[in-house]
């Protein structure tokens, strides 16, 4: 019967004739096309699909979203088919740019606050002010909402944050004759501690007093902390020219370069630690300007060392600041389901969701009400990051920031390697950055 139904014999004999293969291939293609055209539309009628690209592929983060938050969302909004994709940070910008260029941007996506200006200036993202105004508890976000502010409009709902604080080991402080309960508070105290903590053999540094990144985004973020602490800033008030090469900037960079070139308490090599165990736990570095993720890494991969780990409040020179940055959710201007997209954003920025997300990664919750939640208050190191948010400053929100940051990083590296004086390096970076600003 099966044979008769599909007329298999005739089909076989047709295949054997010249041109039969061609006809058969065309028939198969046509049937496949019909099938694929029919199936999704039947589904689409009942539910709207919202696509959401989440930033990062930390296993605990993905597990929390997949096993707890997504099921809860589907239960609350059965009419929304939420499609979540986890995009690794390294490829996030590239994939988003390609998706926007190809007209395939997700309805909601996550990115760092530094990306706000670029997306907002080119009209890629939706201003959220009218929606934020309707949120009953928007004030709970405090100043973190301002990280997504571009020319007075807000484009980002913050999800998680990170800051830079000095991380050190209490046991090594004691060995070096330092008091672990009184960490360095000024530049000079910090420098003296680094000198005492560094261990050298001949010309080689066996243990760095301080781990200083010399290139890329890390170097720029450390420089930012010292620039602000020296009383400087990246731009003038109306963002028409850079100011990081003034006396404050030179003082900051000179201080950092001296740690490598003169005091020799840090070197230019990259410390990898061993496997997943970070270098502070393998006695390769005594102090570093850590983000909460570094703390979490020691806790997970070197639990025996963790009891010795301490985190200090930001250093103070003329002023007391440190670098904090939040990542959050943006809504694409091209989204066809903005109402449902906002439901997604509201759900994932609720106190319950933010507590789960941030606890999973050891990151900082943007809501003030969560500072006292057990996940953050019970660990003194994470608590230190939450408490130091009062000294937080972020990178400037202007469209050319990423390019200016790359120019600056390149010249910071020249100065830290001792190839250029700090003044010459910053002046040259300023020259290139100002040229970029005047072209806008």
């Amino acid at each position, binding site marked *: 019967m099966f044979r008769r139904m599909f007329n298999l014999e005739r089909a076989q004999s047709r295949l054997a004739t*010249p*041109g039969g*293969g*061609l006809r058969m*291939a065309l028939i198969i293609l046509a049937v496949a096309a019909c099938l694929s055209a029919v199936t999704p539309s039947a589904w689409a009628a009942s539910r709207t699909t919202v696509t959401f690209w989440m930033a990062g592929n930390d296993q605990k983060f993905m597990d929390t979203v997949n096993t707890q938050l997504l099921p809860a969302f589907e239960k609350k909004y059965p009419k929304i088919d939420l499609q979540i994709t986890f995009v690794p940070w390294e490829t996030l*910008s*590239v994939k988003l*740019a*390609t998706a*926007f*260029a190809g007209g395939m941007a997700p309805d909601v996506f996550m990115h760092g606050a530094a990306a706000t200006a*670029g997306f907002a200036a*080119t009209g*890629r993202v939706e201003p959220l002010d009218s929606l934020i105004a309707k949120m009953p508890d928007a004030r709970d976000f405090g100043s973190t909402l301002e990280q997504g502010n571009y020319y007075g409009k807000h484009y980002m709902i913050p999800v998680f944050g990170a800051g830079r604080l000095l991380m050190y080991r209490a046991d090594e402080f004691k060995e070096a004759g330092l008091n672990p309960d009184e960490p360095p508070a000024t530049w000079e105290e910090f420098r003296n501690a680094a000198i005492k903590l560094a261990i050298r053999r001949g010309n*080689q540094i066996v243990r760095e007093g301080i781990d200083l990144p*010399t*290139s*890329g985004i890390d170097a720029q973020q450390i420089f930012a902390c010292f620039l602000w602490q020296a009383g400087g800033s990246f731009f003038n008030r109306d963002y028409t020219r850079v100011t990081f090469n003034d006396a404050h900037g030179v003082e900051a960079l000179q201080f950092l370069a001296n740690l490598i070139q003169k005091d020799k308490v840090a*070197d*230019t*090599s*990259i*410390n*990898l630690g*061993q496997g997943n165990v970070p*270098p502070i736990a*393998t006695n*390769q570095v005594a102090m570093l300007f850590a983000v909460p993720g570094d703390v979490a890494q020691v806790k997970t991969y070197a639990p025996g060392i963790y009891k010795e780990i301490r985190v200090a409040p930001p250093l103070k020179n003329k002023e007391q600041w440190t670098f904090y940055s939040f990542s959050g959710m943006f809504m694409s201007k091209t989204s066809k389901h903005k109402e449902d997209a906002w439901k997604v954003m509201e759900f994932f920025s609720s106190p319950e969701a933010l507590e789960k997300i941030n606890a999973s990664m050891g990151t900082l919750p943007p809501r003030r009400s969560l500072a006292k939640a057990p996940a953050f208050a019970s660990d003194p190191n994470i608590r230190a990051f939450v408490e130091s948010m009062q000294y937080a400053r972020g990178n400037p929100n202007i469209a050319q920031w*990423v*390019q200016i940051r*790359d120019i600056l990083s*390149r010249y910071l*590296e*020249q100065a830290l*390697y001792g*190839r250029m004086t700090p003044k010459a390096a910053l002046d040259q970076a300023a020259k290139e950055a100002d040229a970029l600003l005047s072209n806008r």
Partner: protein
Amino acid sequence: MSSLSAYWRNRTRREQMLTGYAFVAPIVLYTLVTGFIPVVSSLYLSFTNYNMMTPARWIGLQNYVQVLFHDSLFWRAMLNTAQYSLEVLPLNVLFSLCLALLVNQKLRGITIFRTLYYLPVVTSSIAVSMIWLWLYNKNSGLINLFLGLFGLGPVDWLGTPGLALHSLVLMRVWKGIGWNMVIYLAGLQGIPKYLYEAADIDGASGWKKFSQVTWPSLRPVTYYIVVMGLISTFQTFAEIYAMTNGGPLGSTTTVAYLIYQRAFGAFDMGNASAVSFILFVVIFGLSLVNVKYFQPQD
């Protein structure tokens, strides 16, 4: 032409022809979509200021003028690439030929050695890079551990501006010799035995046989290895991306890595496309020089 139309009028032949086209269509389509169209569109983009955010605007030769006459980073990357290529190629030829001569012996279990030497070739560049990143590690790397036994080092292989590129060369040579060894091996086995017999009758020494018979007979193989090596070393990207990010101080930024930085770091697609086409012209030019001056005449 008339024979083609006669061919077309015959129903069976027409169907045969169409079937043939239907079978080659997927690969032709694939080549057009993933090869030809992107190349042509990036040639177009190289004359625009496309940044993936706003529509492309035609700016003529501006990108090329900028890159060739006002871009010190490009020239630095070009020099790095040339240096890398000039270091990798001779070492690669030398070591792969030596290995091929060694594994050309008729010994028991020689295929095991051939397989072992070939292993790095079939390992992905990123995996190899991660292993070498650890080997080169200043504090806990095997190489420094070994040097330490003799009271030397530790050396910061990838963190020292004058050394990082050479370290990458060493890794590339190790990864590449297996492939070239196989090609040399095929070449060696293709040399007629009577040439060696004639040399024996003339009383030639081992070195004479190598320099007068083996090396000249391998010339077409060497030519092939050099041309292909030149093309691939000029496009080196993966190990730079995985191991040094072009640093320290830009000392390992190759042209291919610069293209990536400009395209997907700064999203300056116009500039990146222009650099790509300049790189294409350079590789094409070098290959032409090779063909003209070094191609074996027979």
